């Protein structure tokens, strides 16, 4: 989703501006990224350190596989995952957009 779109054009302000839970997922912070993590699936041992230390909940097990992948909708490209990976299976590469 483009950051310039207003996802709330039909919004009605609730009493006291109370918000619904879990709604920030609408904000795709992947657009902030300059470097993206890529994983060497052969080197990945599935330890989950990348998941543990990802501030954006973007490193997750890949469905049906024994390795981890990245939710690029949210990954901001901080590179913590690459730092904490015990097998150096993650590399940060400059993203071409």
């Amino acid at each position, binding site marked *: 989703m483009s950051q310039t779109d207003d996802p709330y054009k039909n919004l009605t*302000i609730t009493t006291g501006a109370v918000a619904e839970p879990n709604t920030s997922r609408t904000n795709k912070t992947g657009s902030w990224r300059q470097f993206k993590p890529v994983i060497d699936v052969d080197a990945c041992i599935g330890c989950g350190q990348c998941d543990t230390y990802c501030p954006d909940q973007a490193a997750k097990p890949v469905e049906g596989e024994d390795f981890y992948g990245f939710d690029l909708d949210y990954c901001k490209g901080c590179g913590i995952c690459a730092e904490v990976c015990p097998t150096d299976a993650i590399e940060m590469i400059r993203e071409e957009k």
Partner: protein
Amino acid sequence: MAKAEPNPSDEQEVMKGTSAVAKGVMAADPDVVSAYPITPQTGVVEKLSELVADGKLDSEFIKVDSEFNAASTCIGASAAGARAFSATSSQGLKLMSEPLFTAAGMRLPIVMAVANRSLSAPLSIWADHTDAFAERDGGMLQFHAEDVQEAIDHVLMGFRVAEQVNLPVLSNFDGFILTHVQEPANIPTEAEVNEFLPPRDPEYTLDPSDPKTMGAYARPEHWTEARYEIQAAMMESKDVWAKTVEEFKEVFGRDYTEYNGMLDTYHGDADYLLVALGSIAGTIRGVIDEYREQGVDVGLVRPRVHRPFPTEEIRDALGDAEAVGVLTKEMSPGYESALAGEIKGTLYHAEYQPPIKSFVVGMAGRDVTAEGIGAMIEETMEASAPMTFDEQESWPQLREELLETGGDQ
């Protein structure tokens, strides 16, 4: 409305103002009371603590570290869905100012009894309305009581209206003059209050089974609307208040329905009208009687509600007066008193604008005597427009001989 009410009934008790208000609060049965001492309010929370200690009041009683956190704990409790009460005065109200503005924005119906008192410096513990007026623009409903009975009843009606329009309430009653007076008052019973005040039923609460996010910040594209809703709720509160005073009359028999509960008048159709808030109105009534006996057609218009401001009602009440005198216990340094300015603003687009004199009196407990009020009536009768800004407002009790600047009032 007639000045004299029937002789006190057997149900009335002679009780200190603060104790009487506390007993009214008890009847409203709040879940949470936050308490911090400040003169002259302290008696309210002391009495409530006594009622809790004796098992007569089943509230969580938080002995907080400051008025700031009295307001803050009330905010937490109210957001959780509780009925919350606190009381304060003067500096304490100032210390609450920041959280109270957010309570309005978060639409939390906290009710506070405010024992009105001057603000430092110099330090003073005595009554005036500078504390209430300093919070004027926060989004809290504000009522001013003339006597102890109203101080009790405004708190109860405060809960009723606050919980419908989701705004906090400051229920003002003058420090010492009403907090420390002993006079007869009817103390509402819990059974009566239950008939008048249903349990709180908030739309959103901090309930983990239905999680919500409260107190989000708003960006420029949403903030104006969120804050405008306070204005809308304030305006809506006029109708709710009008219904509330009717309901109150039905249950308790006490009649606050004049001008939809917004104004109380005494010879309100007189040629010359005084306007005043709170307990000073009582003394004014006696002076009006004296002047009327001498053939002077003078009356009183007392706003019971200061926020929302009784705009239409003020236009009705003052619209055909020969002249108006505003007696007020607050000041706005650099301009004129806020109450006078508000009344003039209200009348600006009315059909007719009477000349208005304002008098800053009774500051920090300075005793306002019948003689002094008489002089202000006479000055009001001589008022005529146009006036210079200097002529608009006077400080009749000012002791000019004490002024280093010499003064020019």
